[in-house]
């Protein structure tokens, strides 16, 4: 038996009443060893901030999950710790992006800027053209990690089929 999956619909503009009732942006406590802030902005095709988006970050290695809605500047912020690398892969976090105007959520991932060697041989990163690769590696910024998500355009973040 194979059932047809239920189709996706947009999260709409009012998701915060259902999805953001509790604070959920800390994958690890702030005092966790190696805890760092992962910050960024969600931007549309005109480079404007998306104020009604929500990101979910999944650390599949350590099984840690977090969720953060964007604010009036389109900004989000998580507390994360770098997971251990899986064999042959660079450490990473998986990210789902939801927003009004996105009829289905998008899938991307964050790699770590201090993992130059591992990033160079990660099979997913290595298969991307340089410009695309750069969109997936966070930038170190004032002790935090910056990861902006651009939905469209020449500098668009790489999204994965899912």
């Amino acid at each position, binding site marked *: 038996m194979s059932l047809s999956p*239920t189709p996706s619909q947009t999260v709409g503009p009012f998701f915060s009443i259902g999805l953001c009732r509790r604070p959920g942006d800390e994958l690890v406590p702030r005092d966790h060893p190696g805890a760092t802030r992962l910050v960024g902005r969600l931007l*549309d095709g005109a480079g404007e901030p998306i104020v009604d988006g929500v990101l979910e970050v999944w650390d599949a290695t350590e099984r840690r999950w977090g969720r953060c809605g964007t604010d009036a500047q389109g900004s989000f912020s998580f507390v994360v710790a770098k997971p251990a690398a899986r064999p042959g892969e660079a450490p990473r976090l998986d990210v789902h992006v939801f927003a009004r105007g996105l009829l289905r959520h998008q899938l991307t991932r964050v790699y770590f800027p201090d993992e130059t060697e591992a990033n160079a041989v990660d099979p997913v990163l290595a298969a991307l053209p340089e410009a695309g690769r750069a969109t997936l590696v966070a930038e170190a910024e004032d002790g935090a990690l910056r990861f902006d998500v651009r939905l469209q355009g020449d500098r*668009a973040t790489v999204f994965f089929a899912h």
Partner: protein
Amino acid sequence: MPTTHLRDEPVVLGDDPSFGGEVQIDYPGYRSTRLRAPDRPLVTLPESFHALAGPVFGEDALDELDHDLTQGFGGEPLGERIVVTGRVLDTDGRPIRGALVEIWQANSAGRYHHQVDRHPAPLDPNFGGAGRCLTDDDGRYRFVTVKPGAYPWGNHENAWRPAHIHFSLFGRLFAERLVTQMYFPGDPLFAYDPIFHAVRDPKARELLVARFDLETTQPEWALGFQWDIVLGRGGGATPLEEG
């Protein structure tokens, strides 16, 4: 309300079964897709990714009354009381137990309890419009709520959303994540709604519509609706073994 103009293209396109279960993410009739739908080709991940386990939520994610949206505010909300229930299944028809189901909706007048919602319909002091639950061993979820109203949304001239409840689900696999909307049978607004019609295959669209069910309807108390949800996993991956 701001006035919006009809655009050159139709708000709703014709059916196209070739889309199958996929929603058309750049559906032109839904204006907000224009600057937001990704416009670059998606990159394919290794097959193994689609078998990656997702987050698991336990009872600690819930409060006692989270499944009952008619409680917790000191009085009864106005509107048609309804029970919405169904099963969460994988594509093999197996129940997904312990799945976190989160819902949110407008009140019976079509107004969300959200500061950005400016629709001049009354807020209901006894209705917050959000709920959550975990599926049981049979994959079943169940909510008690009131039927949400239709509301205008400014996408085009005289645009109204059909009544709907937003659903968010986590399956066992990371790839089974789903956010969608449940609609009510026979809604006359279906024909005019670009979000609903962005699912181009009419058979797939039907999967978004709940079924009125007299068995679920509780005498002298609430109308019952059944809506099963099937979580796809993308990539044709082999599911995780039951653990």
